[in-house]
């Protein structure tokens, strides 16, 4: 299916409605998620602050997930020199950076009551910050090279190199005994978290996911249309 959509025209046809449908779906999921978050019982240890989790954790997951998507798209753009993959990579980066910033901000808000500090230089926090820098570096590189094709390839190489950071972020907690919570959902042997907290968390995660895919497709469409418009303008300028 992915390969079927690789043709830009077919992609454009198939995703014409994606913005509307995805938008509605994301709105429903997110509203449900927020409602569930506020009706969930407070944690016996963390009290009301646990509600930050429903914003923080999915955002942190998405920061990593989007980077994986960016890496995948970059791989296709690099190996198959596929214009659509490149447009997708370009479109994904700012979204990932936004999720990443959200995870950092909410984590830091949460850290204040839990650890007594906005920030500590621990492995998990540092590696998430590094992931954020990767997003920034990726966007800076794209902006600094003015030849579109060269920029695309150089950025794709960088994105692939940066993939190495994703497992480091995820496993940092186990590799260094960190202040930060160890994995309690995505772990071998199943989740260790109470159902009353897990349900809103999962709904929120689905909402984030759907929001991301919607925005990703919309941004990719815009990118494809922009390149088309530019090509048209160049053609006109050349003919004149």
């Amino acid at each position: 299916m992915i390969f079927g959509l690789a043709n830009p025209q077919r992609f454009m046809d198939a995703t014409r409605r994606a913005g509307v449908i995805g938008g509605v779906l994301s709105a429903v999921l997110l509203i449900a998620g927020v409602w569930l978050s506020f009706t969930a019982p407070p944690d016996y240890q963390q009290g009301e602050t646990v509600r930050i989790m429903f914003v923080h954790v999915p955002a942190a997951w998405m920061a990593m997930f989007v980077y994986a998507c960016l890496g995948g798209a970059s791989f296709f753009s690099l190996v198959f020199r596929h214009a659509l993959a490149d447009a997708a990579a370009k479109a994904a980066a700012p979204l990932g950076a936004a999720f990443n910033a959200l995870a950092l901000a909410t984590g830091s808000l949460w850290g204040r009551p839990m650890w007594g500090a906005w920030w500590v230089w621990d492995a998990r926090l540092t590696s998430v910050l590094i992931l954020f820098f990767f997003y920034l570096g990726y966007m800076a590189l794209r902006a600094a090279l003015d030849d579109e094709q060269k920029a695309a390839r150089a950025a794709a190489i960088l994105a692939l190199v940066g993939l190495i950071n994703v497992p480091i972020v995820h496993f940092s907690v186990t590799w260094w005994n960190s202040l930060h919570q160890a994995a309690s959902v995505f772990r071998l042997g199943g989740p260790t978290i109470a159902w009353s907290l897990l349900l809103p968390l999962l709904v929120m995660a689905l909402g984030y996911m759907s929001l991301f895919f919607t925005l990703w497709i919309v941004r990719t469409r815009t990118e494809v249309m922009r390149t088309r418009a530019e090509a048209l303008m160049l053609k006109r300028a050349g003919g004149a």
Partner: protein
Amino acid sequence: MLTGLAIEGLAVERGARRLFEGVSLTLARGELLTLTGANGAGKTSLLRAVAGFLRPQAGDIRFEGQDAEDARAESLHYLGHQDGLKPARTAWEELCFQAQWCGGTRESAKAAVEALALQPLLDLEIRKLSAGQRRRVALARLIAAPRPLWLLDEPMAPLDAERRSGFGALMAQHLQGSGLILAAAHDPFPVPGRTVQIGASA
């Protein structure tokens, strides 16, 4: 063994501007083909496309007798506007490195020193050479590491009259040994050959 070069319908873009399109040419053993054209017409770009640095937008570059990758790694010399010589190293160090890098030996480097009369320059650092002397050091690698196809970008511009005819003789010798030369130039070479004009007739 590389025996020929055939270019068909080549189109090259730089910075979203199409420099030329539909350029077709062939080059056989023993032939010199001179590229001419206005500044910015795309002579250098064409040479770079043949050398494999630049991916053309359309068209085909075929090496005969060898596949493109091998040809580019073993059978061609590209000598551009910039010679890549390091100012702080001596002429002999640089020549020696270039020769060995391109598959020659210290002995063949010495032969090139003879052929281009570089003897008195060998111990000088590149930054101390005059423009013409420096160009001769750069040209020496063509002799020091024999490869069939020479891609030359205005090789003679800084040479004096005597050295021009001297290098012309080396070119003729290379062609006689069934070499191939594709060269960009604003002035004609002292060697018989065909000429192709790149870009709008200027």
